[in-house]
């Protein structure tokens, strides 16, 4: 059985210090602690984790688009170099008014993550300095990593198919016809 003493200690200390500003705390598994906080508290939570708890290394900032629930979820993943623990701090951002606090004064490398999120999800970070273009060039469409951006539709609008493929066959259909096999319902959407 894994020893989860420090994992539990992190949760206990965070709960004691932040009380109800920290919710949904849990030990996901050995070396992984998950917690959720609100947008207004994220800076103080991250600063506390870094300065007081020793989570010095920022591993990752991820963003998930939960379109159905009308929110973006930003996940800050920190690493404790001595205790060897990752903590995942989640924050929800309103999808219609996506504004989040900028944290690149805490970790300089957050700047790149935030620039990418600004470009790919359209999330504005208050006071973020840096060229607006990181990967895309002259982009005026919907931010492409959002769930409602349809890749296939974009490709059909902007690109044309190479000539010489007019006789391309649907392999699945050809084989099914030859063998008399019926294509199952769930597989039909994968047929061209």
């Amino acid at each position, binding site marked *: 059985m894994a020893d989860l003493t420090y994992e539990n200690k992190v949760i206990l200390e965070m709960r004691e210090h932040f009380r109800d500003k920290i919710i949904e705390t849990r030990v996901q598994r050995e070396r992984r602690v998950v917690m959720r906080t609100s947008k207004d508290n994220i800076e103080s939570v991250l600063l506390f984790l870094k300065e007081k708890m020793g989570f010095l290394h920022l591993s990752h900032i*991820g963003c998930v688009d939960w379109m159905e629930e009308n929110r973006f979820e930003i996940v800050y993943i920190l690493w404790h170099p001595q205790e060897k623990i990752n903590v995942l701090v989640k924050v929800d951002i309103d999808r219609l008014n996506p504004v989040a606090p900028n944290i690149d004064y805490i970790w300089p490398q957050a700047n790149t993550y935030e620039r990418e999120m600004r470009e790919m999800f359209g999330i504005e970070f208050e006071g973020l300095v840096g060229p607006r273009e990181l990967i895309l060039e002259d982009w005026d469409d919907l931010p492409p*990593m959002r769930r409602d951006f349809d890749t*296939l539709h974009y490709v059909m609008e902007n690109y044309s198919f190479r000539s010489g493929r007019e006789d391309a066959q649907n392999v699945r259909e050809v084989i099914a016809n030859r063998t008399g096999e019926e294509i199952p319902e769930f597989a039909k959407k994968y047929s061209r």
Partner: protein
Amino acid sequence: MRNEKTTTIYLGPQHPGITGNMMVKLEIQGDTVVKAETHIGYLHRGFEKLMERRNWLQSFTIVCRICVPEPDPNEENYARGVEEIEGREVPEKARWIRMLVLELARIQAYLLWYGGQSGSAGLYTIGQWSVGDRNYVLDLFEELTGGRVYHMYIWPGGVRRDLPKGFKSRVAKVMDYIEKRLDDYDRVMFDNAVFQKRTQGIGYIPPEKAIEWGVVGPPLRAAGIASDVRKDDPYEFYDQVDFVVPDMYNTSDVWARALVRRFEIRQSINIVRQILDKMPDKGPVWNKIPNPHKWRIPRGEAYVKTESARGEFGYYVVSDGSEHPRRIHVRGPAYVHGITLLEKILVGQNIADVSVIMNSLGTCPPEMER
């Protein structure tokens, strides 16, 4: 009187000294860099978006393309992320085979690095040798997986095939050969006064800032901090093999990073031998997955990481309970090394050393853009 005028030059995207399809915009004063700015966007393929349209098995075939010189940590991360969310068991032998593949991948990545690092310092012979020797490892991969560069071998539930007959002895032979060759590289590279002069004191990262700036892998160990995912957050059976994480080369310059890698390639050869020794001969290598079209992963998320030749490779995998990944976010070591860190440490360096430093950090555009 000193002339304060600066000149802007563009290193890349078409430049022999740059490590792939990226560009570093340099402002120079005489020979000295006063400002550096990394520009990416020449290689974006949208893997993360593509994966949202594909099912869990189809996504596995494209993750390896995220990193060209060392694709296997991607497969490992993806597979482990899916397994962690789903709670799928992996057979013991498959886990040993995964370790074998990861270490072989590390060895070939270091051999490629020998070429890049020495080539950027003007020593071209070593690159010819090491890339030639790397082919022996690629031959092994070809025999095992069918592919030389992209393997698509480590997949959720295990690995795709068992080892071919006599494969272990061929791996052992190649390891013996490469170990012998490493002494030759030492003679022409590490004993070479040109290489020493070009690398010592160049590209200094302050060790007290290294963790905070997000440095990982060999550059972090070259700052005297023994940090390795294989030891810190052991995956597969890395807690059952013996190896040393170097912290004795702590000058935190290009030279120290080169010494760390020189040390680690020998460690990897040693690990491969231990794996061959400890791997069971018989047993299943794959825990069969259901029909891929109907294969749903329960809602959940996982952050998994693997130590690649350039440092921690992280995947944040999110499932919403459907047949398609909700989100897979890739964090390659170069995402930090090649942008914020590079921009910081290039300041004050000689323009001729820029590509030496880039090679020592392992900047790799494919994983910055995915």
